């Protein structure tokens, strides 16, 4: 009983370099770093001087808490773009993180001083993209300035519409709200402002009657 076909569900496309941008700011997590490496290669061949105006903030795959990606390359594919590969590129700056909140804190600080002409690239699990987008939105960055590619787990951030708590890392169609304990149906209805999918009480009309719980967001 997954509710699908809702327009607010974000759709991402493979990252492409935007050479009209004057500055490039890239965020990567886990397998997303492979996409960043690809787009950096593209940028280098289109506008070699652009790398010196590119900042990369990343969480390496081996440090990333997410399990192996279902949609990512098979294990024997080129490793998950380790930080060393980025360090060799002559970027303006490379910062390596071990957790998302710290990376996002630095990201926000960079946006505070960033100039018009900046392009943002985000690659990684959807929840990571959503959190970065939420911050970008506060700085009035719009779809012309942001590109994102989804790579990694589909686990969702789920916002309980009853108690307004967000439950992280949700992999099932129905989840118990970590705060109020209601059983929530995870909808495709997405809020960019909250960076979360809406969760609505699944057994409100017939308490205790819940459909089968399935792992759907792997």
């Amino acid at each position, binding site marked *: 009983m997954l509710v699908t076909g809702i327009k607010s569900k974000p759709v991402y496309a493979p990252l492409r370099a935007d050479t009209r941008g004057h*500055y490039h700011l890239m965020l990567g997590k886990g397998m997303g770093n492979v996409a960043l490496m690809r787009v950096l290669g593209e940028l280098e061949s289109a506008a070699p001087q652009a790398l010196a105006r590119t900042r990369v903030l990343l969480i390496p795959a081996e440090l990333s808490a997410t399990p192996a990606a279902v949609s990512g390359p098979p294990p024997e594919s080129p490793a998950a773009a380790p930080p060393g590969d980025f360090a060799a590129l002559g970027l303006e700056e490379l910062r390596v993180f071990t957790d998302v909140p710290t990376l996002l804190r630095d990201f926000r600080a960079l946006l505070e*001083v960033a100039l*018009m*002409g*900046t392009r943002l690239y985000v690659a990684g699990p959807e929840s990571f993209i959503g959190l970065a987008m939420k911050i970008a939105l506060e700085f*009035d*960055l719009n779809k*012309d*300035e942001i590109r994102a590619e989804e790579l990694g787990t589909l686990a969702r951030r789920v916002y309980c519409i009853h108690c307004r708590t967000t439950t992280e890392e949700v992999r099932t169609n129905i989840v118990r709200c970590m705060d109020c304990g209601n059983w929530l149906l995870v909808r495709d209805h997405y809020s960019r402002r909250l960076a979360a999918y809406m969760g609505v009480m699944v057994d409100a009309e017939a308490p205790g009657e819940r459909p089968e719980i399935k792992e759907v967001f792997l």
Partner: protein
Amino acid sequence: MSEAQTLEVEVTAIEQVTPLIKHFKLSPVAGGSMPAFSGGSHIVVVMRTPTRVYRNPYSLLSPPHSLDSYEIGVRRMEESRGGSHFMHDQVRVGMRLEIAHPVNLFALDKIARKHLLIAGGIGITPFMAHLEDLHSGRVPYELHYSVRAPEHAAFLPRLRERAGERVRMYYDNAGQSIDFDGLLSAQPLGTHVYVCGPAGLIERVTATARDCGWPDSHIHWEQFSAPPVGDAFEVFLARSKVTVHVPPDQSLLESIEAQGVEVPYLCRGGVCGFCQTRVLEVDGELIHNDHFLSDADKAKRNTIMPCVSRARCKSLVLDL
């Protein structure tokens, strides 16, 4: 906009504010207040002369919160087709004029983190109304205002009163010019730029902003240019079954209106796309002068903006 929606106003004050610009105050004939508007809006003034009717758009420069009257600024155009000369030479205090309701095609972005306003000459007028909103808001802004010489700096005392040092003046005769590269390459993320003035200024700002990596969604401009002149031609209106002669100095839209056929319009400047009309047949060349249609649309030869575009043709049939 159709004629049924115009309202009658009385000219209650006229002031010559610079050698070329007159400032008009328009008040409701029957008392009461004018329709509400937002900063950046324009009205269309209908001018009925013995020989023809002009409909010219003018930005409202009065504060949006004060609706006892509207104020507009009209620059006398050297090569006027007649509209600005009519406003300057014929309009007197106490006269009645017909205007179309305000329309806003140049609003401020509501979620911008900073507004960068750039005005050239008479292009200051929409910003006068914007400043009233910006004055009471928290979003930072700056206004860069370029004029030929100090005596041409219309409304400067009022601007200073509202915006103080956030108004930066540039006088051509003193060799001062806006450092477009410097300005547009150093704006914080979330800035929106707005430009109003001569075509050259608008092109310069939009091109420089794009070079600095600004996306089009952050670049806003408005210009009310007079419809370009051209060769005379004939057009047949298929649904109305009338043939209209378009003289060299009258626009296609004006010529159609003169025959009593109404075409919906908003900006009359080739920007908004409201008057877009289907071309059923054309034997010759369409001369597209608008900023609305894409090159691909223009190449299809099946649509035209009659407010500014013309034709050089043996025959033209429009779906009107």
